[in-house]
């Protein structure tokens, strides 16, 4: 669901009033088509690099909804440093080449203060170098490990969502203690799957567990039954991270293969983002466990902040759009937009950000952040930000499917997901 009336279009005009310096530095374009609504101070412009089309479009819609809701809240509370926030949206078509072009448009044409919002890893990797060249702060919401791996640059940050390495690593203690120590991993045979394979193997070994089989499925595969006989008999837990259109087929065939007596199942909700757990064919998932970035189904003990956030983004108790209950949201990821925007706000306030000349100060201010307690600004849970690796660490949720509903049975701590620093961006010059 995209409610286009919620988008209040703010027109920009060279403002009159205090802080003339802010006007010049704020990068305001002269009034377009003569819209006459005067603002008392120039807005902060945030370039939203949206996957409006392409393979990321379903995420793009929900990222947009969440972004608009967060900005509405921020502006209702007075904006950033008393200035309203304006979102400038450009479509990167989920394409790395286009992503870099979009960042150029943001910096040179729209003259935004910062850019934000990219999800898909390959687009982030394709765009980030350009952000570095343009000296444009680039806040990504991608959960990719590429930020913390050191692959990118000091202008790219991920303060609003945890990364895959942290997510995978933090699952190992629960799995080893509750599900079993002999794990068979089933994953698609490319980088995404390999990351899970590598991160988890190391983590489960540290818990005294063992990966007894690694079943790598070719990405072009759309039927899986022939792979299941290689699952060793002594498997206690199957760890699966299948993605793509064949996921439902995978679950169905796994169910047909095992019947009523199966090992424990552990998966990532990424496989089923935007798909209702109650969908026909997913009955086999009864009793299965899932990592969730943020619990899709409203929990009885959810915090007020979490519930307020859920209402603000228009999502019901089953994680679907309130006015279109078949439209299941990408709940495990979109909170990242909300939190990232609030981090940008906090950073700009800490740096007393006036305009693009202060971008370096903004980066430094964000790098100085550490604890981000759970609050309406961080409804997913407590966070700790690592200024050196530019990556946030947070809680991870493990839910069990019970009668078609995901109930949180364990919350992994921030420490569970920590790993050694792989880079120190602060040594790079801005």
């Amino acid at each position: 669901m995209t409610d286009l009336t919620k988008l209040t279009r703010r027109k920009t005009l060279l403002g009159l009033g205090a802080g003339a310096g802010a006007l010049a530095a704020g990068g305001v374009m002269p009034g377009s088509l003569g819209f006459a609504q005067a603002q008392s101070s120039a807005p902060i412009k945030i370039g939203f690099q949206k996957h409006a089309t392409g393979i990321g479009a379903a995420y793009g819609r929900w990222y947009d909804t969440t972004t608009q809701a967060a900005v509405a809240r921020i502006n209702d509370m007075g904006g950033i440093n008393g200035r309203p926030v304006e979102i400038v949206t450009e479509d990167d078509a989920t394409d790395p080449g286009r992503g870099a072009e979009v960042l150029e448009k943001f910096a040179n044409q729209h003259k935004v203060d910062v850019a934000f919002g990219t999800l898909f890893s390959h687009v982030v990797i394709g765009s980030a170098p350009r952000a570095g060249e343009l000296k444009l702060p680039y806040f990504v919401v991608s959960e990719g490990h590429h930020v913390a791996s050191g692959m990118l640059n000091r202008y790219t940050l991920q303060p609003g969502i945890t990364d895959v390495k942290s997510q995978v690593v933090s699952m190992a203690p629960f799995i080893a203690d509750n599900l079993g120590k002999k794990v068979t991993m089933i994953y698609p045979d490319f980088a995404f799957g390999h990351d899970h394979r590598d991160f988890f193997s190391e983590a489960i070994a540290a818990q005294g567990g063992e990966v007894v089989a690694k079943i790598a499925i070719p990405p072009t595969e759309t039927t899986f039954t022939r792979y299941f006989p290689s699952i060793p008999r002594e498997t206690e837990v199957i760890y699966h991270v299948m993605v793509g259109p064949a996921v439902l087929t995978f679950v169905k065939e796994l169910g047909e293969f095992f019947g009523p007596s199966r090992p424990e199942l552990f998966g990532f909700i990424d496989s089923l983002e935007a798909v209702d757990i109650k969908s026909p064919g997913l009955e086999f998932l009864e009793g299965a466990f899932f990592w969730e970035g943020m619990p899709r189904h409203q929990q009885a003990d959810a915090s007020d902040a979490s519930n307020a956030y859920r209402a603000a983004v228009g999502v019901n108790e089953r994680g679907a759009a309130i006015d279109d209950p078949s439209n299941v949201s990408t709940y495990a990821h979109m909170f990242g937009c909300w939190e990232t925007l609030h981090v940008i706000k906090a950073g700009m306030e800490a740096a007393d950000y006036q305009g693009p000349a202060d971008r370096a100060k903004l980066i430094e201010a964000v790098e100085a952040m550490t604890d981000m307690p759970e609050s309406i600004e961080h409804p997913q849970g407590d966070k700790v930000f690592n200024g050196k690796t530019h990556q946030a660490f947070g809680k991870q949720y493990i839910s069990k499917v019970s009668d078609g509903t995901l109930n949180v049975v364990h919350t992994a701590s921030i420490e569970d997901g920590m790993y050694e620093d792989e880079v120190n961006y602060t040594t790079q010059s801005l």
Partner: protein
Amino acid sequence: MYTNKMISLVKLVFGVLGAFMLGTTPVWAHAANQGFVLLLPTTAYIAGGTVTVALTILLLIFAKPGIIDAVMQPVPLRFTASTLPLRDWSQSTGALCLALLILIGLRGPTDPQANLLPLVIWTVWWMLFFVVQALIFDLWSWINPFPAVHRMLMSEHRVILNLPSRLSIWPAVVLMAAFQGFVLADTAPNDPDRLAVFALGYWALTLGGMTVFGREAWLKQVECFSVLFALIGLIRMGRSNRLGLPGWQLLQDRDHDLSHAIFVVIILAAGSFDGLYETFWWLAKIGVNPLEYPGRTALIMPTLIGLYGSILLLTIILAVAAFSGIKWVKDPVPFKAAFIRFAITLLPIAIGYHFAHYFVTFLVQIQIVVAGLADPLAQGWNLFGLGSRRVLVGFLTVPENVKIIWFTQAGMVVMSHVLAVVLCHRTAEALVSSRRDVVMLQLGLSILMIFYTIFGLWLLASPRGA
């Protein structure tokens, strides 16, 4: 929130002699929807559809000669309305709308899902109007924006250079081929700025062409969309106050030549490739991980090679089918005439596939268009209360709906093949006399159509990575 940008005039690259950037592969495929399609027993459905087409071919073997003509005979309609002056006005309105849309493209919202230019061009014009033009009425003659400005400036008979009529529609063929290349391979056909510049460029080209070569000649032979809509309009049931079964117009003698045949081949091949190049099958062939689609920028070359290769391949296959048919019959049949006439019978398939291919995307995008109409100039309006209309996408993840939608798509594909088979039979009847010859002449084509049915349905059922 969106921003209205004032793009300096310098950015307008007038006279960009590129094809009008229209149509695209709107890659808004909803992943969950696809997941449910893969759970359907599509193999059985594909078999069913193919059997339907095969049965039609078999039944026609026993059809009495002339029965198709009798069935397809149009009936005259009683009322006539002289609409010509009205048409001039409506075309001017079309031109005004296009101008307004281009302005919105340049200065309106930067998000293509909020900007009416890409929304109207792709969803309304390319998806909806195409089907309306082919099935319902000659919409294009009412909204064609190109003649209007020229009409204001000079008479249609004014010509500076003569466009030889023996060129037929070859210029349009070249433009359409180029345009399809842009459609499938360009990195950002939805970008409002970019689209506006291309639209303006094509309009300028058309205006220039009409001025030099005369309005009538240019629109008839070069302007590729007028040519396209005229051609697909031949499937329509109603024309010139007569009403008949779809395709009856093609039974009337028309002076189609090789350029028309190749034009049809291009529409069909490009439409087919548009479906193919999103599939796991194609991505695997070009060494791309379908679960890690790299984006259009990285795939420009493979896409162009695949597109033009498809056009070439279909031409060759069609030629082989026609040629083998000729070899198997007693009566002498000129190859060129057979090729041309059989190529034209592929028209229904191109239209049926266009409908099926875009149907799911259309169901979502048309809602976004309606919501966008509420505030075309990004002033914060809420015209007709449309702004509060919700865009519902959840229905695509309800298995029952997925099934109904898939059947609708498949139904169109099958029906269009059945129609093509009928037209093909009738074409054979016109070329040879004995029943045996009629069957043998179109044998190659019959096999081609059966395989194309399987292919078209397989495309609908195939997992997509893009």
